[in-house]
């Protein structure tokens, strides 16, 4: 599709969906719903195309004589084994589910374990990389909230002063998170508006 046509189409669809979200015009609602429902098969097809591309990349890596990546065979074998089992048994088959989850969950748990160690190591190394009050504040707040959220201080909740102090401490991350999320929401709005006016065209290829 030529870029001006795709841009006009994207802007028109964006405006219809936006107006449909705010204005209770009866004729606008079915059009908006239809357009939104098209997003699901489009996203699913894109996912399929991207997976085929991923398989293609690993196939070419495996067959590249200069930079052969032998680990790619594991990905390809894993994919085709899962795909064949899913086709034969069906994705909701309990045996299929059991095999997949008994492989996937331990691997993900192991990665989570590695992540924990990595983050601990990174937090220590942060003091070499960024010497300053922000690093001290980051580490101090991490330690304080680990202690607060561990439930270790629940015994002190019966003491009025400690209870108030804990309540004040628990408000701090909520306030900080809201501040960050407000900034992100405003950034998301302006990004969306750029797409809506055709200034940002990620689909222009």
């Amino acid at each position: 599709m030529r870029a001006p046509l795709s841009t006009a189409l994207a802007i028109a669809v964006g405006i219809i969906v936006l107006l449909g979200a705010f204005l209770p015009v009866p004729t606008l609602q079915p059009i908006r719903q239809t357009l939104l429902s098209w997003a699901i098969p489009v996203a699913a097809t894109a996912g399929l195309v991207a997976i085929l591309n991923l398989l293609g990349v690993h196939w070419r890596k495996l067959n590249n004589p200069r930079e052969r990546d032998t680990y790619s065979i594991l990905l390809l074998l894993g994919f085709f084994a899962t795909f064949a089992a899913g086709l034969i048994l069906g994705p909701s088959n309990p045996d299929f589910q059991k095999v997949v989850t008994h492989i996937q969950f331990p691997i993900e748990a192991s990665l989570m374990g590695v992540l924990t160690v990595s983050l601990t190591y990174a937090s220590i190394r942060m003091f070499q990389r960024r010497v300053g009050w922000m690093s001290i504040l980051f580490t101090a707040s991490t330690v304080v909230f680990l202690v607060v959220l561990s439930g270790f201080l629940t015994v002190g909740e019966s003491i009025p002063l400690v209870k108030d102090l804990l309540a004040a401490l628990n408000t701090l991350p909520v306030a900080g998170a809201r501040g960050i999320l407000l900034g992100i929401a405003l950034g998301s709005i302006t990004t969306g508006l750029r797409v809506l006016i055709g200034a940002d065209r990620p689909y222009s290829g």
Partner: protein
Amino acid sequence: MIEAIIALALILVSVGLIFLLTLQRGVLRTGLRPLPAFDRLRRAIGLAVENGTRIHITLGRAGVAQSFSASGLVGLTTLERIARVSSISDRPPLATSGEGTLAILSQDTLRAAYRQINQLELYNADRARLSGATSFSYAAGLLPVADSENVSTHIAVGNFGPEIALLLEAADLESSFTLAASDSLSAQAALYPSAQETLIGEELFAIPAYLNAGAVYTASLQVQDILRWGVVVVLIGGAVLTLVGVI
């Protein structure tokens, strides 16, 4: 109904301001607040081009059909800009993502960038790929990129979980430069100690403006600032009115 009208009015005012400030910026060019992260990023891009190493941009897991897709769109603009400035490098940039639509759009963005600079022969669909469809398969798929694709700069811009720290840790072992920005709070917490440069909160949306992607990006950054002041006034006003018992 009144809320809908206010929302639409705000959208129209914001669009008007973006247009106005974009046109004005052509005449009056004011500087952006200096952020050391972008100075280091520019230096890292320059070094990657000089050394013939690759720049890796990972775009996260938020597809365009999801409500938190804005960070992915910023990542795509970043990719387009970096593809342009590093087009003279021996090794063109590599883009990875954890969602189908984002992977397709990253291919499209790379193709558009090369077509605009009349170097379409540089485009290779394998350089914009899906690394995994779930959060941990995405992270696991990124790890080989850190040590086997001759990458010297990793830029993570998008929606991630804390598992993105695994890539940054692997990149650090290879002495690569890392810059990360995310709209996810848990990812930001993990990125702060892991990445060499971390952009917090709305700084994520400033990336295209700092990479000189165009006047409209600087204008939208200014509109973002105006909206922020509006929110501040409304919050303080609301608090004061509640305090005096008006609302």
